[in-house]
């Protein structure tokens, strides 16, 4: 299984690379949404900061008080349009709900994702995945409750403990547990989606049940497959942030933009790497299943009349 897992881990990366048009397409949709969501803010900022010597306070370094000042002004020219960002983010979520079907179809079938095939698959699975989303919300409720309880317990520990570390250590441990639970839930639902696509399963509760069984029987294999990619994603993201915040010159706009977009691309790519890994894993799992022998009726027992039995 380890060898299979390693093979799956790397092959999945190859699959993502092979059908990289999916990555690029989703990335550009995300970028366009990002640009649209910030368009109004940018125009207002530009009208203020262009032809303005005070803009140097933001360009050479980054003066926090300048940003706060601008936001304090009446009719703040630099007001963050949070609602725009949230709206477009929600739109992207809907888009991904739609696109996931097509993406998984490409990975499961390992066929060139033509536009027609992609949209067919996406549309075919959209409402199924929407129903899965509702199930996911229900499953996440107890985890949210656990998070709330963690916060309350942490507060209580902090009030009782002289050392400031006790509460923090508790929080760290609880965060790990909650994170693991979230990963498990996500993995469960990922596999349900894979089953829905691979088996064209219409009933999501059945897909979930099968996925749960699959996960239970092959937990370590699937979990490690998922976790490895997550670690890589977070490590690369942290490294990218470090480069951006501490290494790039404050005035290097082009480098900052390229680096930030590369971080988004890697983040997206690793997520699709996970999806490809799950799809490949399922394909291999199905291929390795020993088929049950077809049932054949047992031969009829031989009936031999005995001498004592009366002849009819």
């Amino acid at each position, binding site marked *: 299984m380890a060898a299979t897992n390693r093979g799956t881990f790397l092959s999945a990366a190859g699959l993502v690379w092979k059908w990289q048009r999916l990555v690029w397409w989703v990335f550009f949709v*995300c*970028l366009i*949404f*990002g640009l649209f*969501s*910030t368009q109004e*803010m*940018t125009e207002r*900022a*530009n009208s*203020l*900061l*262009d*032809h*303005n*010597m*005070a*803009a*140097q306070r933001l*360009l050479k*370094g*980054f*003066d*926090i*008080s*300048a940003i706060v*000042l601008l936001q*304090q*002004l009446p009719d703040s*020219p*630099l007001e*963050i349009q949070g609602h725009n*960002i949230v709206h*477009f*983010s929600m739109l*992207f*979520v809907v888009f*991904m709900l739609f696109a996931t079907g097509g993406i998984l179809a490409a990975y499961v079938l390992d066929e060139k994702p033509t536009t027609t095939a992609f949209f067919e698959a996406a549309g075919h699975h959209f409402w199924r995945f929407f129903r899965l*989303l509702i199930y*996911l919300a229900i499953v996440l409720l107890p985890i949210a409750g656990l998070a709330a309880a963690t916060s309350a317990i942490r507060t209580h520990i902090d009030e*009782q403990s*002289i*050392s*400031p*570390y006790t509460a923090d250590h508790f929080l760290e441990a609880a965060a790990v547990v909650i994170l693991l639970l979230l990963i498990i839930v*996500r993995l469960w639902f990922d596999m349900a989606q894979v089953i829905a696509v691979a088996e064209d399963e219409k009933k999501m509760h059945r897909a979930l049940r099968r996925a749960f069984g699959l996960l239970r029987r092959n937990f370590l294999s699937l979990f490690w497959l998922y976790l490895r990619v997550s670690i890589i994603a977070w490590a690369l993201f942290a490294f990218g942030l470090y480069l*951006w*915040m*501490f290494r790039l010159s*404050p*005035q290097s*706009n082009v480098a*900052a*933009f390229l680096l*930030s977009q590369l*971080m*988004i691309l890697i*983040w*997206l790519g690793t*997520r699709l790497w996970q999806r490809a890994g799950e799809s490949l894993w399922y394909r291999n799992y199905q291929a390795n299943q020993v088929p049950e022998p077809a049932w054949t009726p047992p031969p009829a027992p031989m009936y031999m009349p005995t001498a004592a039995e009366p002849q009819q």
Partner: protein
Amino acid sequence: MRLTKVFVLAAAVALSCGPAFSQATATIASAGTASKPLSTRVVAYQIEAKLDATKHTIAASETLTYKNLTGLPQQTFPFHLYLNAFQPQSTFMTEVRRSGTRGNGPDSDWDAKHFGSISVDKLEVANAGDLTNTMEFIQPDDHNTDDHTVFQVTLPKPVAPGASVEFHIVFHDVLPRVVERTGYAHDFDMVGQWFPKVGVWWKNAWNCHQFHANSEFFADFGTFDVKVTVPQNEIVGAGGDLVSSVNNSDGTKTLSYHSEDVHDFSWTASPSFTVVEDSWTGSQGPVKIHLLMSPGHMASTQRYLDAEKGTLRLFDQWYGPYPYDRITMVDPPHGGADAGGMEYPTLITLGTAVHMPQGVLAPEVVTEHEFGHQYWYGMVATNEFEEAWLDEGINSYTEVKVMDALYGSNTSAVNFPFAQMSESGLQKISYLGDPDSDPIARYAWLFINSNSYGGITYGKTATVLLTLEKVIGEDTLRQALHTYFMRYRFTHPTGEDFLKTIEEVSGKNLRWYFNQAIYGTQILDYSLADAHSDPRKWWDTSARGAKVSEKDEVYRTYVVVERKGEFVFPVDVDVKFDDGSTAIEHWDGQDRWVRYQYDRKAKIQSAQIDAHNQINMDRDPFNNSFTEDSDPRAAHKLRTIWVFASEWLSQLLAWLT
């Protein structure tokens, strides 16, 4: 006052040794009748207190010898009982509920853990007997009869001018869970404003205000002899010289402190402190630095010490000598942050956190600020109820100067490669959070809310003084502060004393400025309304059609400066042309606008109001300049950040799919 909490953490050199105060040393402020008092010692407190570290209560007795220097016979004496503010029906809590305070927002619920009280069990006056039953609570500020933070007692006979009266008061304290500077957190006790404190005879009347959400304290100078009995495992810090420490047979120990020429005494105790001893030598000799660090905060030790020594040095150099031989610095534990950021004579409380980044200079800022109060409040003992700006505001200004000198003018509050903030910027944004609801000179408890109080008292005063540098010069203002300190230390000056000192030292009449800045609420905002160049013969298209050389073309340049706010202030306008020539205009700022006109064989390249950024009070520095050349890089930088944030949020939410 306590600084508004900001952030937190750092690295250390711990010099561990037990509490090792010297005996009272032969310094200017040393104990004993041989040394000349620095202040007019109106009060002499002798207090014996015993702390119950489990219940966080204090049983105490106080002998107050009050010297009647009022010039009038005095028969009625008011006293502060500050700890009674921590009760739901008090004026303090009522105001917190209404308008918030530094630690709590409006509509905060009452938490019984924050109950505190000071009860007078017995009050006797020498030669007058037991006057306990004649005590009456008074409410001079708001007539809230449920507020018991001030009582008065009337003696059978008046105390003649020049004579002394001795009060013997038995009282006990219930410390609240840390709230507004005082109380306990885990095994930490911060004991401030804890004893019956007599009011101040000031401006021919008793000045003894109730405790308000947005006010601090006011008291007379004198001496303190305090004996504190605590469990033997407690480590104690106090605002006084440790005279003796005696272990008692019941598992407690009694520490005796003496302090002179101060107007308050506070102390703290915790078995969990780590003691760090250091010292600094200034113009008056050595100053012992006694730092009490809480668990988990040792990484901030060296940051505290470096900031403290830097501040000591610069105050000594710029404003005047520090006359005491010690300073006690207390780092409150986690959960006790509300006790942090506060000043008492020769004792200050600080604030940090477990993982305080080096780039967030919160430990340094709070150290500088609270030590600065040793000058502005501790020695120049202004009335914090009625003129809070004189200690908080002046201290915030000197905080900017000291922090800039120690940590860089652009990086004195936040210093990361990717983001910075200066102290002056911090003060300005604090001010502009609510710039025109209240004037600086308003009584502290009459501000509309805590945000306005904090922003105006601290931020606006600092910004006003920074802007004043443009009028009289930075060196002159420093000289004025030095003069003010040396003249009024150990007294109770007023705002007018301060302003007149500035006028005297600068040799200028500054009433036009002070009337607006200190007593008014006008906003200062000058704006570059227009800056463009037009061909002089703009109508003569044929000449341009004949391709007249640009070098021969004469341009008329217009620069219009507008006063958008009501604050009138003289401004300079720097105009640059594309041939390298410049013009500098000085406008008195009186009218609503002014237009400058230039006819030159050059077009405008840039125009800027206040090119040297000296008018800190200007509300909007982004309407002060114009450049002909386009430069959208700042907007693009912001866009990169916003787009990234939007995309990453999208990706995070897409996890749900």
